[in-house]
């Protein structure tokens, strides 16, 4: 076996091993350096994996050479490669931004630990995506969750502790539910390998155990992805976490959870079982729609911009869940597209907020007054990200909403299409509040504010440009998303 054959495990192992390295080095600058290095290496591996999967099809990697279903299998299909690419790309950009922001927000003696926890969370997320083993999913889920709790609790605001604690409780319940779900599937089929599970489940699909397992799995994953009304932990966790953590988690963690949901309901169970036999589609569509409208409305009233975008994230998750719930290839394409696109826009927005927090130490709307003149590049990035969030062409946000509306119209579900547009209008309102404050408000004359440093503007604008680039040059993202979607729904049929 050549080096290239080991890529599926290397993408996870490298950040995992970087974590103890950070602790051992115990110097802020060194810890940052190895972290960004490992993020970049993972990113290049992920690119390589996308090429490999595109050329050769799904990669199946046997851990330690043990043949599945006995050994642990890592399975990289098109969707997995795609999500790995998103997560590693965002991690690399966030790491670039992290150096200054972390120096400002984290006490110096904890910085090395911070990077260690960050790398663990990163590795955990990658592991969830890469693995083809149900129990392994749980293990990586716990790795990423436990480290996220630690990361969130490092926020400067003391409410961060409370937010982290709440997230700990909710996350643990979610993880437990997932474990219970996996356990009951194991009980009925005797296997933990996802592909094997998929092959064996249809025989026992009619048992209560499997159905209960399915319920526990969906609710557990729903908790992790902050599905309405299980989203209540998310706003505080995002609002009070350090800027770097918010940017990273908002752009990746929920995406991985959505990936997990798709994997479970379409990969392990089948489309017929999950969305036709079980009424999960109705549940997802209903909760998704309520989430879109309700969370957007809350966002309109928020005074803290970080919290506002956190609620907007809940709404955006609603769009993704809605796409899955529509249970068509177009709907799934829209969801997968939005997974990618939302990572781009929220990554940009939260990095910009981080830059603002770095300069003025607050993200309250009151302090945005007149920022358009003081921090023109950062504010322009927020406006651009906001346009994408609203879904104005030629941004990526438009592409995914377009597909979502198409999917709804294909099924002749006009009211849904209408509600999607209402969601966009609400986004206009809450973005406009920001624009109004920043460009029409009077700057505070007693406060001296500078533009954010280049190391923050660089990742920020790379993401902003990506928002527009992938909004115009859509072959790559739509091609990947639609073939991943047809691959997945093809499995079900």
């Amino acid at each position, binding site marked *: 076996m050549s080096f290239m054959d080991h890529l599926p495990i290397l993408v996870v192992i490298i950040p995992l091993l970087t974590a103890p390295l950070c602790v051992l080095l115990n110097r802020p600058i060194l810890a940052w350096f190895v972290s960004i290095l490992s993020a970049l290496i993972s990113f290049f591996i992920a690119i390589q994996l996308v090429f490999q999967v595109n050329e050769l099809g799904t990669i199946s990697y046997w851990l330690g050479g043990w043949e599945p279903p006995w050994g642990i299998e890592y399975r990289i299909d098109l969707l997995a490669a795609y999500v790995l690419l998103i997560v590693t790309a965002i991690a690399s950009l966030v790491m670039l931004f992290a150096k200054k922001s972390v120096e400002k927000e984290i006490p110096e003696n904890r910085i090395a630990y911070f990077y260690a926890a960050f790398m663990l969370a990163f590795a955990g997320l990658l592991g969830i995506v890469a693995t083809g083993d149900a129990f392994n999913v749980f293990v990586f889920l716990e790795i990423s969750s436990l480290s996220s709790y630690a990361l969130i609790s490092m926020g400067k605001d003391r409410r961060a502790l*409370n937010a982290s*604690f*709440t997230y700990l*409780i*909710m996350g643990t*319940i979610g993880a437990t*539910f997932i474990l219970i779900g996996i356990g009951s599937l194991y009980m009925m089929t005797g296997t933990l390998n996802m592909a094997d599970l998929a092959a064996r489940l249809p025989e026992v699909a009619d048992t*209560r155990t499997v*159905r*209960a397992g*399915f*319920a*526990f799995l*969906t*609710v557990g994953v*729903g*908790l992790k992805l902050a599905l309405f*009304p*299980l989203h*209540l*932990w998310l*706003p*505080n966790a995002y609002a009070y976490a350090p800027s770097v953590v918010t940017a990273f988690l908002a752009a990746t963690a929920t995406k991985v959870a959505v990936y997990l949901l798709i994997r479970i309901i379409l990969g392990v169970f089948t489309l017929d079982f999950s969305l036709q036999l*079980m*009424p999960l589609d109705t*549940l997802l569509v209903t909760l998704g729609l309520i989430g879109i409208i*309700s969370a957007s*409305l*809350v966002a*309109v*009233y*928020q*005074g803290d911009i970080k919290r506002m975008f956190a*609620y907007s994230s809940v709404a955006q998750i609603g769009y993704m869940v809605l796409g899955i719930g529509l249970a068509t290839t177009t709907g799934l394409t829209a969801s997968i597209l939005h997974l990618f696109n939302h990572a781009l826009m929220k990554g940009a927005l939260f990095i910009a907020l981080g830059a603002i927090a770095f300069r003025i130490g607050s993200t309250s709307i009151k302090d945005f007054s007149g920022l358009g003149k003081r921090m023109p590049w950062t504010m322009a990035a927020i406006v651009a990200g906001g346009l994408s969030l609203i879904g*104005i*062409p*030629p941004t990526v946000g438009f*592409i995914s909403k*377009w597909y979502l*509306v*198409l999917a709804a*119209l*294909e099924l002749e579900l006009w009211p849904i*299409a*209408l509600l999607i*547009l209402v969601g*966009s*209008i609400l986004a*206009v309102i809450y973005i406009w509040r920001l624009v109004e404050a920043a460009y*029409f408000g009077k700057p505070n004359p007693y406060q001296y504010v500078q533009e954010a440093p280049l190391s923050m503007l660089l990742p920020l604008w790379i993401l902003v440009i990506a928002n527009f680039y992938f909004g*115009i040059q*859509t072959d790559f993202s*739509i091609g990947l998303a639609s073939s991943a979607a047809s691959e997945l729904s093809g499995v079900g049929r």
Partner: protein
Amino acid sequence: MIELWPAIPLFIAAIMASVTRGSLRAIIMLAAPLISAYAIFQLEPGDVFSVELMGLQLTPVRIDALSILFGYLFNLAALIGVIYALHVKDPMQDLAALAYAGSAVGAVLAGDLLTLFVYWELLALTSVFLIFARRTERAYKAGMRYLLIQISSGLLLLSGAIFYSSAGNGLSFNYIGLESSGGWLIFIAFGIKAAFPLLHGWLTDAYPEATPTGTVFLASFTTKVAIYALARGFPGTDLLIIIGVIMACFPIFYAVIENDLRKVLAYSLINQLGYMVVGIGIGTELALNGTTAHAFSHVLYKGLLMMSMGAVLHVTGEIRGSELGGLYKKMPKTTLLCIIGAASISAFPLFSGFISKAMVVSAAIQEGHTLVWLALLFAAAGVFHHAGIKIPFFAFFAHDSKHIETAHEPPGNMILAMGIAAAFCVGIGSFPGLLYAMLPFATDYSAYDVSHVLAQMQLLAFSALAFAWLKLANIYPPELKSVNLDTEWFYRHLFPQSVKKLLDRLIPVDQAIKKFSFDIFAFSQQVLARHHGSYGILARSWPTGSMVLWVAVLLGLSLLLYYF
């Protein structure tokens, strides 16, 4: 010659003009419409530029007789507007005005609905800054209301386009019609921008609040883009005839009792749009030619009137008719130019309004719409009254106002811009063949020969109605100088009072409706705030226990659903 999208030079110039100063800025701003017009000149009817985006076939530029004429018209209007605004040193307005012109040119050349939508929203986003640029609280609020309505129009257009194309019609922008639901959505979207009755509020609300120079741009583009879009998408739709007639008639009453002279012009703008909408509704070649020709001459004379009022506002800082008067002593050139505009809008022979309005009116007769014809005649008399007489009379004649002391002619560039527009008004009116040759359909129509009798009749109706109502022997513009207090009484008392009596009946109803909808709005906002506000139920930081309760509820629900 390199092929160039005609809208691009305007956008590039918009950005360049906003960062340059002095004569360089002036050259850039003046050159932009010329280059854009040249780019249109380079193209032949039938030319299209296509691109493929997201698997959709888009046509950002499509050239035919209709779009060419509007393209030239908008560039001409932009050029006049730019000259008029040369003395203003406000980068925000330069940027907004040129980008706005670019959006208008782009919109009329758009060959598919998606491109149209993009320019449609750009029109809104760029033009609103011409209102904000007044930099008053009132203007800001009016601008926000304007923006809200314009953006909604765009969203309607987008949703209409999605419905329309998903019904298998494709995205290309040709005849749409009202057969499909998508068609209706698009129709309403166009209707908002075309200031259909009840949807017109934004126009009279926002246009008078813009800067003196900004209103000139505003009056030229947005509504005319909508007229173009209607002419392309819905020619021959009978509903449009009714809508057009209402549009032509109802603003007259408002215009008469309005004191803000720019608002008077805004109402008369709607009235003129009514003629065009009627023309589209009739839908014959003559009618569509009439609509196009009327749009062309309308942009010029309405621009001229707006410019002359802008000049008054610029010089005196006052635009209320009751506070102005007697300015002809200090502003003779502006007065003369304003009267040319007034004569054009009133459709005096040898002025541009005559040769274009006559086409629409003849088309109405040809198709046997006698009632429509009568209504249009009534509207024409009304226009003559409020735009032809009231505007110049109150601003330049009437009683001497306190502004006479300080008044003077506006800057040379303003005079020049008005002069160009006035030259076009007279030129087109005297040599209509030049304009007729450019119309979308070949025509041998002659306002002065074939419909000679008709024109006479129209004028007779003018005289008779105006005579009866004005209690005046002569109504021709030269007579205006001798207008005595009788007419003043008429303006101040008779008409307002009779209209007022009608309005007094209507106002309580109107207010009740308004109050009801405000109450509903306020109530729903309260409910929203209670649930979604900062400390609302849905926005609160919840205790962990309640969160877990929700988990339990959802789990229970799922189990229940999955078991049964």
